[in-house]
């Protein structure tokens, strides 16, 4: 196949390209500079006729590589879909005529821009091969669900309903998790007025009746190895043998623990008549609809609920976030009392009552039942008489010395995720970890997290965490994704949520996990390049074992083999190319995206001499946000400088510094790098890609100084997909600045 290469270029003259550009000249460029064996034009290339022309050349003329000079690579993807053929796209429409004024004086520079894009498309396609797909596919289609609470049980049932086998592992002796400990749950149905059955028994019986679901209780994950479609998971069953299961994808639904009430002594944590929400559920279960009694057996006649106990804390001592479910839970618990006896004084002390879902109706129902809600900040809970005195600052009446006496105080302490070991902060790693060859660390003060998945990945045993120990995922754009391909998190381990949200989450994550298994079986990438058949290959003979690829891979896809060479697990790979950008000896590449495919485009651009006053600026734009923003700028006809030549990259993380030095050496006057926002509120589709890329590129300044160039010539900017109006302005400002510097001294060398 590789022997017979035949390159063809197709130039479209539709959409106004014919009127604005000299198509004959472009044809000449494709033949002469692009060295294309076949060059054809068509006045409507994406029409049936145009596509048939290309297809005919592929079928009957042996064309293997196609450069299409027409619109953006983001447009007409369905028309220009030739699965067996390598394709590059020269962006003449969004990249040239839509961003340039239609004037006589602009005609020359516009034509030059178009000719360069034709050269680039030809150069790119010649450096490409059509990917064949990941050869190391795994075909296992069994889903492992870790955690048998509401989230885990829902996920298992949903996956089973979709026709997949499920292995459900639960640490305790019974399914149900927190929900099973609830006397009742917050209502999920109209009219949302009274607590309802917790629903656990129903789910458990459904699971027991489901032949697709295999349940392990009293079991933990001893080891997870492999990749999506071919995970090997060792399940350690208490007082039993360790079982190994073949698994396609993993769904982690390990839930949360309550924040330790003993850390709140000023709010009465530790006192006999002060309980947390779980404590009250236990009392309510014991009462089972009768009068709720305290631990000492006394019937509770007055109760105070303290919201945000140890939550939304600004001192840094306790949880700084809102756990999302506690307000509804306290409303529900207040109703336990009121439903039994309306004369019991129930007061909820809150600062902001947050009732997600249909909680507003529930809240109103509680008010109707006579639960009193007071806006106040509790300063202390002290034991007094036979109960407690709650001192608080009444925020409505601005009474700093308000107080209430109560038989029982319930603290809404909030949720701490069970996300395992924080692999980015080894201080939190288990001090007494039984990992081989590790000396026991300093004495443990607190309970240290133990690993949940025990991944045998080079980058650590659990999925990476984000803020406050919740697992990392982009909670708006791609909520269930973790930074470990084929492993999804759902429920309160991902972000604070209640049962209803967790069940929705479970369903979504189960679907994503099924997608991942299916894609892995076809050798395709998972999100965000879902369906991509390319995969990284490494020329090991050139590898220096520097380990930058293994360290930087945001998805932990690369392990090390016994000879300390990188070992790619293609099914774990998301095809972002961060390894390729990181590799100092440039031995990592994809069939259709490599140091060469971009490097060839950079070199293909015609650099005018220093007297022409035509600077050339290279734009390396992230294909997820920045390149679409450029396209949308074009659709809005926001014009920008004719000096720029834009090349889309898979991620800023895939930018190899050689591209920048090559560009500057060959006479480009400037380089603009456009990537997504990084940091706490990152927008990067590969989570860490833009951050890693930026860190790498921050070192380029030294290279520039070494070349006696202004460091501002390389400009790194954060671009969001919505920047279509501001982006052209920034490009123009930058182009003006570059013009102010004068031409690069490297021109002509």
């Amino acid at each position, binding site marked *: 196949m590789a022997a017979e290469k035949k390159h063809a270029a197709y130039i479209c003259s539709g959409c106004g390209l014919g009127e604005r550009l000299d198509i004959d000249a472009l044809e000449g460029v494709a033949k002469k500079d692009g060295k294309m064996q076949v060059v054809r034009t068509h006045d409507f290339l994406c029409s049936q006729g145009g596509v048939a022309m290309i297809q005919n050349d592929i079928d009957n003329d042996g064309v293997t590589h196609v450069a299409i000079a027409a619109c953006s690579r983001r447009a007409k993807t369905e028309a220009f879909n030739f699965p067996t053929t390598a394709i590059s796209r020269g962006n003449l429409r969004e990249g040239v005529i839509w961003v340039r004024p239609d004037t006589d004086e602009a005609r020359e520079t516009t034509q030059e821009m178009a000719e360069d894009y034709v050269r680039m498309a030809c150069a790119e396609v010649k450096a490409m091969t059509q990917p064949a797909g990941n050869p190391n596919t795994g075909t296992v289609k069994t889903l492992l669900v870790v955690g048998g609470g509401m989230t885990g049980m829902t996920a298992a049932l949903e996956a089973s309903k979709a026709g997949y086998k499920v292995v459900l592992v639960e640490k305790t002796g019974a399914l149900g998790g927190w929900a099973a400990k609830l006397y009742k749950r917050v209502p999920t149905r109209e009219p949302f007025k009274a607590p309802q059955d917790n629903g656990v028994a129903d789910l458990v019986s459904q699971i027991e009746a489901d032949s697709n679901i295999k349940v392990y209780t009293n079991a933990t994950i001893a080891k997870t190895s492999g990749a999506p479609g071919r995970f090997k998971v060792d399940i350690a069953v208490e007082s039993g043998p360790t079982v190994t299961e073949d698994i396609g994808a993993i769904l982690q639904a390990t839930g949360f623990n309550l924040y330790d009430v003993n850390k709140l002594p000023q709010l009465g944590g530790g006192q006999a008549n002060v309980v947390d929400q779980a404590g009250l559920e236990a009392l309510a279960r014991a009462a089972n609809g009768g009068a709720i009694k305290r631990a000492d057996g006394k019937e509770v006649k007055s109760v105070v609920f303290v919201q945000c106990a140890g939550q939304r804390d600004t001192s840094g001592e306790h949880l700084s976030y809102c756990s999302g479910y506690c307000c509804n839970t306290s409303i529900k618990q207040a109703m336990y009392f009121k439903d039994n006896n309306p004369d019991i004084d129930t007061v909820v002390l809150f600062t902001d009552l947050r009732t997600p879902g249909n909680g507003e109706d529930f809240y109103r129902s509680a*008010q*109707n039942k*006579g639960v*009193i*809600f*007071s806006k106040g900040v509790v300063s202390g809970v002290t034991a007094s008489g036979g109960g407690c005195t709650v001192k608080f600052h009444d925020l*409505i*009446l601005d009474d700093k010395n308000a107080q209430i006496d109560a038989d029982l105080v319930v603290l809404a302490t909030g949720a701490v995720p069970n996300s395992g070991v924080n692999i980015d902060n080894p201080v939190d790693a288990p001090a007494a970890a039984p990992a081989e060859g590790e000396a026991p660390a300093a004495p443990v003060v607190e309970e240290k997290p133990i690993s949940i998945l025990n991944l045998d990945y080079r980058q650590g045993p659990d999925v990476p965490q984000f803020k406050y120990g919740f697992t990392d995922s982009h909670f708006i754009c791609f909520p269930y994704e973790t930074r470990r391909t084929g492993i999804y998190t759902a429920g309160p381990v991902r972000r604070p949520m209640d049962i209803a949200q967790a069940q929705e989450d479970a369903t979504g994550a189960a679907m994503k996990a099924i997608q991942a298994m299916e894609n892995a079986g076809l050798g395709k990438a998972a999100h965000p390049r879902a369906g991509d058949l390319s995969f990284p290959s490494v020329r090991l003979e050139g590898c220096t074992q520097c380990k930058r690829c293994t360290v930087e891979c945001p998805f932990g896809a690369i392990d090390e083999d016994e000879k300390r060479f990188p070992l790619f697990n293609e099914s774990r790979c998301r095809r972002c190319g961060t390894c390729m950008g990181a590799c100092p000896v440039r031995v990592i590449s994809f069939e259709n995206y490599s140091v060469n495919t971009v490097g060839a485009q950079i070199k293909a651009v015609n650099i005018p001499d220093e007297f022409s006053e035509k600077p050339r600026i290279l734009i390396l734009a992230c294909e997820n946000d920045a390149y679409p923003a450029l396209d949308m700028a074009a659709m809005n006809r926001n014009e920008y400088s004719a000096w720029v030549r834009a090349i889309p990259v898979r991620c800023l993380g895939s930018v190899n510094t050689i591209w920048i030095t090559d560009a500057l050496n060959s006479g480009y006057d400037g380089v603009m790098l456009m990537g997504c926002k990084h940091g706490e509120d990152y927008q990067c589709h590969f989570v860490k890609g833009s951050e890693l890329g930026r860190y790498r590129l921050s070192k380029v300044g030294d290279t520039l100084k070494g070349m006696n160039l202004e460091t501002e010539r390389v400009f790194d900017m954060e671009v969001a997909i919505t920047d279509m109006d501001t982006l052209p302005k920034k490009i123009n400002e930058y182009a003006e600045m570059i013009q102010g510097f004068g031409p690069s001294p490297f021109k002509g060398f």
Partner: protein
Amino acid sequence: MSNMNEQMAAKYKNNFLKEIEEQAEMGDWVKMCMQCGVCSGSCPTNFHAGWDHPPQEIFMMIRAGKREEVLTSNSMWQCTSCYNCYVRCPRKVPITHIMHGIAEYAYRLGLAPKMQPSLHLSQTFWNNATKHGRVNEVQLTQSLYFKDGIGAGIKKAMEMKDVALGLVKAKRLNIMEALGGGHKCKDVDGIHKMLAKAKELEAKRKAGKAAGA
């Protein structure tokens, strides 16, 4: 009347919210307030000097059991009955009606602030209107002007004399109404009987409530 106050205080002990719910008209809505403050923000009086507490604070004080403070407050008497708060309340709490209900209850207990202008106007207007079945505007104006003494009344009358003369000229004001009873409605006795019956019915209903029926 203060006797009734003591009775009620004893009856409800610490549960002032319950007292308001059962005794004040529309009082059972107080618990539904969610303290958003839209009522206070919507009030056209802007709580100029003289307002003790905005409505949502009154409701909170009721829940906090601040009985004396609420019942002797002048807040309920400041309401102009524009209904802006009622219209805007996201919880559809009939704030205007509750304010009047609490005001009326405080009046019944004898705790309403003495010589509070709104209270005085209400009483004066009521007495004036029910006496002959029609409002006698001149006498009503007189009693309002002279409520703070003769000197203040004359001063006020002099200030307003141009307006009064204009009204007389336009035949909108009959000075002669000041003398004697002024004009009456056709069946004064009928009106009085009707009012007496209404009062009887109301007293019966409220006595029933106070007794805990």
